[in-house]
């Protein structure tokens, strides 16, 4: 049932609007975007001789990257959505070919850290990068899962690009301010429980 609905073809502006609205239609819009250009996977297999697994990974990363850019309003509409998306897919395929030929790991989306560090100068960036690399991500993950559904959902939605105001509407909080306070409290709680075990 869900997949039938997701396969309904919407015009580009509609799908972009649904992604940007961060409302209840966003999940469907993400799935529709994925479904619409799924044939890229086959093209990746034929054109770049990828295994289905590799082609799927590259395509999924393409869609995730596109969703991030679309929700952030970084798609300027100079070309059609398909052309723009294919360009991202092609670039990721080329990256993947390089990774395969140099025996490196698969393409992963590790942009979040570097994106955030862009705000900082090189010296500050280097300090923070070293500290991040020393993090115990397994422990952090464990503590995140122990945090409770509400806190986890708050943090996840914010990480997914939803604003405090949009989270307030989605999770029925009174105001965006309440969301922000709750979210930061959750983050603080996570940090304390993480530091407690880490140190």
């Amino acid at each position, binding site marked *: 049932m869900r*997949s039938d609905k*997701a*396969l309904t*073809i919407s015009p580009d502006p509609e799908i972009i609007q649904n992604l940007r609205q961060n409302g209840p239609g966003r999940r469907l819009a*993400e*799935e529709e975007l*994925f*479904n*619409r250009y*799924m*044939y890229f*996977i*086959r093209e990746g297999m034929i054109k770049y001789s990828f295994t289905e697994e590799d082609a*799927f990974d590259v395509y*999924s990363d393409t*869609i*995730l990257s596109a*969703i991030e850019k679309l929700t952030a309003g970084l798609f300027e509409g100079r070309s059609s959505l398909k052309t723009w998306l294919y360009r991202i897919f092609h670039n990721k395929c080329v990256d993947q070919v390089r990774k395969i030929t140099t025996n490196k790991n698969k393409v992963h*989306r*590790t942009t*979040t*850290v570097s994106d*955030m*560090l862009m*705000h*900082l*100068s090189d*010296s*500050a960036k280097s*300090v*923070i990068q070293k*500290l*991040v690399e*020393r*993090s115990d*991500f397994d422990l*952090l*993950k464990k503590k*995140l899962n122990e945090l409770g559904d509400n806190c986890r959902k708050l*943090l*996840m939605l*914010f*990480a*997914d690009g939803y604003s405090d105001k949009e989270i307030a509407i989605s999770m029925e909080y009174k105001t965006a301010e309440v969301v*922000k306070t709750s979210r*930061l*409290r959750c*983050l*603080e709680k*996570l*940090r304390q429980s*993480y*530091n407690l075990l880490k140190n």
Partner: protein
Amino acid sequence: MDSTEYIDGFFNGSPDDEQKKQFERRIASDPSFAEEVAFYIGTSSLLKGQLDQEKKLRFRELFEQAKKDDRIVRPLRSIRPWRISVAAAVLLMVAGLWWVFLRQTGTEQLANEYIRQELQTQGVKMSIHPDSMQTALSAYNSGDLQGALGQFETILRTDTASFKAKQYAGLACLRLGEYNKALGYFTKMETRPGLYTNPAVFYQALTLMKRHQAGDEQNARRHLQRVVDQDLGEKETAARWLKKWPQ
């Protein structure tokens, strides 16, 4: 909590240069603050990674389902209505031109073929003292159509009733492309009674098929039908052509 709020505000806002410098100075001077920044960034990265993983799982389900249902197809390009209209108009125009061309070449081809096979030369009587008609026919047969026409017309000036002179003058005009003049001679030929076969009407049809002005094709057809119905000269050819006539 104050630091967390400060860090959150820094990464989710638009800090100016002074705010950036202040933030960086604190990283450099306060190791616990630097640790908090690293934690914030590390957590954001982990959350994003988990989100991506969850979405990828959803995508995997969609992909497997689509594979099962054999739905992974490249969609056809949507065609805008104006493009359909333009395509239809072009198609109609091409079809129209093709139809006109086919009709034209259909009847004209029959006429050309007949002229090439039957009217290139005319019989000349061998004689020690060739008369003016034989001289004119020789000119006709040698391809000097203009010269031949002049000679046939000279004969007609002295012998206005000469059926053969009218026929050959008409044929010379036809081959020279002087269709109206040719029609004039063939019409005059028609008035000659008592002949076993008179191809005058058939020649008129032939000339109309070559002239190909508005209405000529219909008239040519009527003439051919008359040839068949009245058992006139070139009846067999007329009947054959009528069978091939474009509808």
